[in-house]
Every structure is written in structure tokens, then in C-alpha cells.
């Protein structure tokens, strides 16, 4: 994968906004002219296509010495939901791991400036593959809400990322008001910003028009800015 920068959006806690964040960061980055990509690696529960309003049964990949991502607006996009026609895909961890390596070995992402990867919650096969085998080429963007259930979960994940040798960890606070900047003020953690809780969030997802007109857009864009300038 000859990509300039690969950000993997992680959180051991589910429902904190990994899929929306990875989708919107990638989409806004592409809208602003960067060559940006989004790869959904949540095999048993892919959902970035719902965020972007893409029907996975319509996604077609071009094959040429590998496969090229589909274009969604200006965004290069890959989701495993396209291979399952959006049907349920229960997979044991060993198969998740095989699928992950299969997919990244056939993808042609050459020339991308920024690649965003969405991942499932937990700390299992995908996370171990990413941390222990792809750790040298990815930059972790950890997402949490201010809830104690999320903060304590994410602390454990951060301690694993650290001990594995990842020295630069980005943090995003979702559905919060900026209060976690102080909580995670530690060497090695770069706080990228927060996105407030927005009760009408369903209007920010589901179609490219919704995504473009999302009232929270400036929050996501300032996170993109910070990422691009920091690392």
C-alpha cells in the first residue's frame, strides 16, 4: 500500500463513532482536494456505506493488477459489504484475519495522500493484526465519548498500543464538549479535538447530501486540519 499516511480509527468501545468519524474525515478530506481513501475493515458489521448512503449492491470495483476502490464523490472507497451484497456475514476470528490480509493485499491504493481505516470494537483478531503486523505503517486515531464506560475501555486499548511500540497516538472526543483534552493530557497522546453530541445526527448521515450539509462539519474539518498538520 503506497499511501502517504494511513490512519486507523480504533476504539475497543462500540458505538463511540468510529464509523461515522472515519467516513466523514475521509469524505471531507477528499472534498477539499486531497486524494483520500476509506477502507472498512469491520467485516462482521460494516457500516460506513450506511453513513455515506451507498448501496453496497451497486458498488463495482475495477480490476487491474489488483482492485481499485470505487469512487464515492471524490472519495476512494472499499467496503466488504460489496462482496456480501449486504447480507449478514458471521465470521470467526481466524476468518476475519484471513479476510483482512486478503483484502489489503489485493487493494490498489497507490498514490493516496490519506487513507482512513474503520475497525470493529473490541480487541481481537483485527486489532492484533493491525497493531502487531501493520503497526509500522498505520497511525492510530482512538475515539472515545466522555462516558466512563468508554473512557475506561479506551484506556486499556491505549496502554496496549503504547506497549506495542506505537509512539504517536491521536485521540478524538466524540459526543463531548472538550473535557477529555485534560483527561488524556499525556506524553504520546495528541488530542485532535471534539465533536459535540447532536440529537439530529441522523441528518448528518445516510446520503452524500446529508454529509455535505452536516452542521457539525466544521468540527470534523478541524480534526482533519490537525491530523494533516500534526502527522
Amino acid at each position, binding site marked *: 500500500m503506497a499511501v502517504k499516511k494511513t490512519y486507523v480509527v480504533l476504539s475497543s468501545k462500540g458505538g463511540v463513532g468510529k464509523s461515522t468519524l472515519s467516513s466523514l474525515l475521509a469524505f471531507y478530506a477528499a472534498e477539499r482536494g486531497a486524494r483520500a481513501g476509506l477502507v472498512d475493515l469491520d*467485516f462482521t458489521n460494516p457500516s460506513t456505506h450506511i453513513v455515506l448512503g451507498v448501496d453496497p449492491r451497486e458498488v463495482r*470495483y475495477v*480490476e*487491474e*493488477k*489488483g*482492485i481499485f476502490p470505487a469512487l464515492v464523490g471524490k472519495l476512494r472507497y472499499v467496503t*466488504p459489504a*460489496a*462482496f*456480501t*451484497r449486504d*447480507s*449478514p*456475514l*458471521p*465470521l*470467526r476470528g481466524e*476468518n*476475519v484475519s*484471513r*479476510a483482512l490480509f*486478503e*483484502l489489503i*493485499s*489485493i487493494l*490498489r491504493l497507490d498514490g493516496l495522500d490519506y487513507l482512513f481505516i474503520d475497525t470493529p470494537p473490541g480487541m481481537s483478531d483485527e486489532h492484533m493484526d493491525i497493531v502487531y503486523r501493520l503497526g509500522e505503517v498505520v497511525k492510530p486515531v482512538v475515539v472515545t465519548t466522555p462516558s466512563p464506560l468508554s473512557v475506561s475501555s479506551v484506556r486499556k486499548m491505549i496502554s496496549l498500543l503504547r506497549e506495542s511500540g506505537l509512539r504517536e497516538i491521536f485521540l478524538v472526543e466524540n459526543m463531548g464538549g472538550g473535557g477529555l483534552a485534560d483527561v488524556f493530557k499525556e506524553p504520546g497522546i495528541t488530542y485532535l479535538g471534539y465533536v459535540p453530541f447532536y440529537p439530529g445526527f441522523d441528518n448528518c448521515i445516510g446520503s452524500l447530501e446529508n454529509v455535505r450539509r452536516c452542521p457539525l462539519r466544521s468540527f470534523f474539518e478541524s480534526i482533519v486540519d490537525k491530523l494533516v498538520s500534526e502527522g
Partner: protein
Amino acid sequence: MVHEWSLAEALLRYVASVYGPRIKTLKLRVGVLQSIDKEVLLFSIRELAGLYNVSLGDVVLEDEEAVFKCNRCGYEWSFNPGDLGEEVRESIHFLPEAVFAYTRCPRCGSRDFKVVKGRGLEVAEVVPG
């Protein structure tokens, strides 16, 4: 269906890193699950050997039947992607694990089964020299 190129690339890199740049015979097992195009694969391997300066003698490709075994009831069956529609076959071509979205144990209906063999490309034998 020319992502055979990337399969060939991964394979050739692996073989060259383990056995060095001179290979007399390369014998591969091609699992039928992935519906790999053997002509394209062979062509890709030869092209890539040239690009990577790997001297390559005979390349032998043999089909390997796809066999699944149910983790619930123990039933074992042979799976033929030819029985599927073109679109589904192509999905599995790209992502073999997509098969879990389309198949269940013919005896007990479980989706909890193992791909015992025939998933993808495997090295059967390498004779260096």
C-alpha cells in the same frame, strides 16, 4: 478478473524470499473456492519473475477441491462455486470469506463451518536451483 496479478505478486515475493532467486520447479495448489483464472495467474507469475529477476523453470498448477466442515454437526462437504451465480462467484473470487454470507451446512443449516481446504493459492512444492 486480473487481480490474479496481486496474488502472483504476493506468492512470488514469498517464494523468492524463502528459496532465493533461482527456482527450478514451482508447484502450486489452486483452491477452487476463489475461481482463480489459471492462465492469467501463470502469465502473471512469468511476468513478475522477469520483473523481479527470479529465474523460474517449470510452474505446475493443480486444482484443489474446496472442502468445508461444519463446526456444529461435523458434516463435511465439497463446495463448488460453479453452482453459484456469476456475481456471487466474483465476490468470493475477491474475498473468499464472503462465502460465509452465501452458504450454510447442508445438514444442519449452520454458518459455523471451517474451510478445510481449497480456499486459495498454496505452495505445494518448490525445487530451488
